[in-house]
């Protein structure tokens, strides 16, 4: 499924999920997971987790050049993207930590048992699946100017999945004749013309989605998404019109973007920062007439002051900050900083700075707290 701006598409998600799951197990083994039992330690645990995950994930991500979506982002790019998003959106991590604590209440420290990996991986998957819907909802909003919720993205994904399921039932004709009849809502003795007309999501009727979901339990034993006990999509089951509009939107954009999808250089570092020049210009041209006290937003002013102050930090501290916020490898890093295309590790930077790793981390985190205007972020020591 393609929608304007969205980057996490179904065909690449399997790879992204597995990459994040596998690397997360490695990273979590290096963290003190008992900290999930104390909510006051969740923020510190996120820090430990992302510190441990970044180098592992980056190394694996570089090996995963397979396409993650139809815009040229690789599976590795998309997985790294979610690592940065998680740092910026800690509530998703807090929900994950709370879910682990809830499991702990039921069955104790399952993560210490070898068999606990599967459950841990599932919780990691859940966290990133909800995070990607938030990321894509924001991407959609940025690309279209229309607000969009993670729930709506989740619904688009469900409808696209339902279309694919119906498509494969149709493709199974005549072996699937009874299910085809249930979907079409009429007896299907000869091959129905709808089967031949089903060439894209645009040809999928909303009524079919409802009937497919309604009858799914009869054919597979699993209730359809509109008819589960959780009732997440229950309101859609009675709203054929809304389903139709959303299907049409998926279909229209799929057609629009099918040709000339030349967006592979999308996040080219140089180009993507060009807009900052426009932002500076728009700021300089803004109309301050009648405003006595000209001040940009406090957040923006604090960020600019922190960016200026960053230049006075010793090189290893600056590099530690970039390592955390931009990752081990970034196109914008000067060549002389990198060996093998990556920045030194935190341990190497500590040696270069002549301080211990905890001391360097502390200085780095103080700088980051200022950059993110999150002065109270370091209260979890």
């Amino acid at each position: 499924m393609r929608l304007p701006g969205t980057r996490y598409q179904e065909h690449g998600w399997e790879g992204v999920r597995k990459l994040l799951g596998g690397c997360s197990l490695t990273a979590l083994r290096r963290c003190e997971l008992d900290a999930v039992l104390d909510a006051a330690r969740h923020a510190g645990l996120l820090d430990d987790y992302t510190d441990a995950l970044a180098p592992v994930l980056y190394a694996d991500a570089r090996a995963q050049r397979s396409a993650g979506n139809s815009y040229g982002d690789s599976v590795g790019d998309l997985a790294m993207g979610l690592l940065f998003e998680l740092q910026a959106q800690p509530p998703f991590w807090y929900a994950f930590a709370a879910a682990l604590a809830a499991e702990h209440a039921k069955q104790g420290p399952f993560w210490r048992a070898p068999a606990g990996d599967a459950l841990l991986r599932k919780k990691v998957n859940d966290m990133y699946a909800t995070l990607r819907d938030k990321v894509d909802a924001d991407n959609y909003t940025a690309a279209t100017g229309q607000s969009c919720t993670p729930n709506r993205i989740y619904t688009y994904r469900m409808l696209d999945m339902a279309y694919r399921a119906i498509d494969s039932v149709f493709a199974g004709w005549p072996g699937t004749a009874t299910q085809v009849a249930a979907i079409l809502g009429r007896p299907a003795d000869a091959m129905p013309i709808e089967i031949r007309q089903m060439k894209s999501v645009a040809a999928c009727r909303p009524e079919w989605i409802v009937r497919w979901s309604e009858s799914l339990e009869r054919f597979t034993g699993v209730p359809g998404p509109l008819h589960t006990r959780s009732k997440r999509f229950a309101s859609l089951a009675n709203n054929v019109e809304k389903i139709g509009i959303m299907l049409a939107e998926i279909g229209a954009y799929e057609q629009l973007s099918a040709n000339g999808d030349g967006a592979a250089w999308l996040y080219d570092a140089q180009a993507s920062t060009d807009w900052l020049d426009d932002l500076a210009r728009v700021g300089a041209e803004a109309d301050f007439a009648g405003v006595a006290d000209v001040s940009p937003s406090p957040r923006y002013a604090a960020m600019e002051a922190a960016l200026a102050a960053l230049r006075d930090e010793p090189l290893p501290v600056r590099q530690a900050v970039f390592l955390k916020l931009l990752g081990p490898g970034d196109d914008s890093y000067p060549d002389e900083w990198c060996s093998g295309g990556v920045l030194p590790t935190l341990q190497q930077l500590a040696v270069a700075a002549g301080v211990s790793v905890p001391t360097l981390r502390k200085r780095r985190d103080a700088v980051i707290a200022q950059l993110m205007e999150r002065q109270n972020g370091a209260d979890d020591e």
Partner: protein
Amino acid sequence: MNEARVHQRLRERLLLAPREGDRLVLDDATLRAALEGSRPLTAGDLAALHGSPLTLRRFRHLALARRAAAWQASGGMLRAADSGAALAPLVTDDGNWSLHFVPHDGGWQAILRLDPAAPFAAALLREGPLLHVIDGAGATVLQGRLDADGECEARWPFAQPPAPHFQAHGAAFTVRRTP
């Protein structure tokens, strides 16, 4: 020491980092007018923009689309009289585009190539507009969209080979986007 780029990257990452409960705080008309300079933002608008990563992301999208749209056409001339030899690649005067010709199946293949260093390259690739190459007489030499490598290729459509054709049709060519 060149840390300017990495600082810009960091500034971008910080500005766009999502905030809980954020929403679009300025409409497209306001953002577009500010980008075009036709109606400056008020002090309040600017503070609102700076304080909303989601609105900044919309601003980024519009700004980059505008940069892409800023390129309309590039023209070029043949540099030498026809020597009878195969035609060397033609380059537009601004240096952003080149046109290559490769023998293919007894005819020719024409390849339009965008210089990745062109100021509008990434934005144009993102937007993917339909491009036309026309000769000095206004006939279409090639049309299509750039692929991920910044190239677009098609069969040479004329009976004459490229060199004599261009000589006979104004010794010039233009690359243009469709409006």
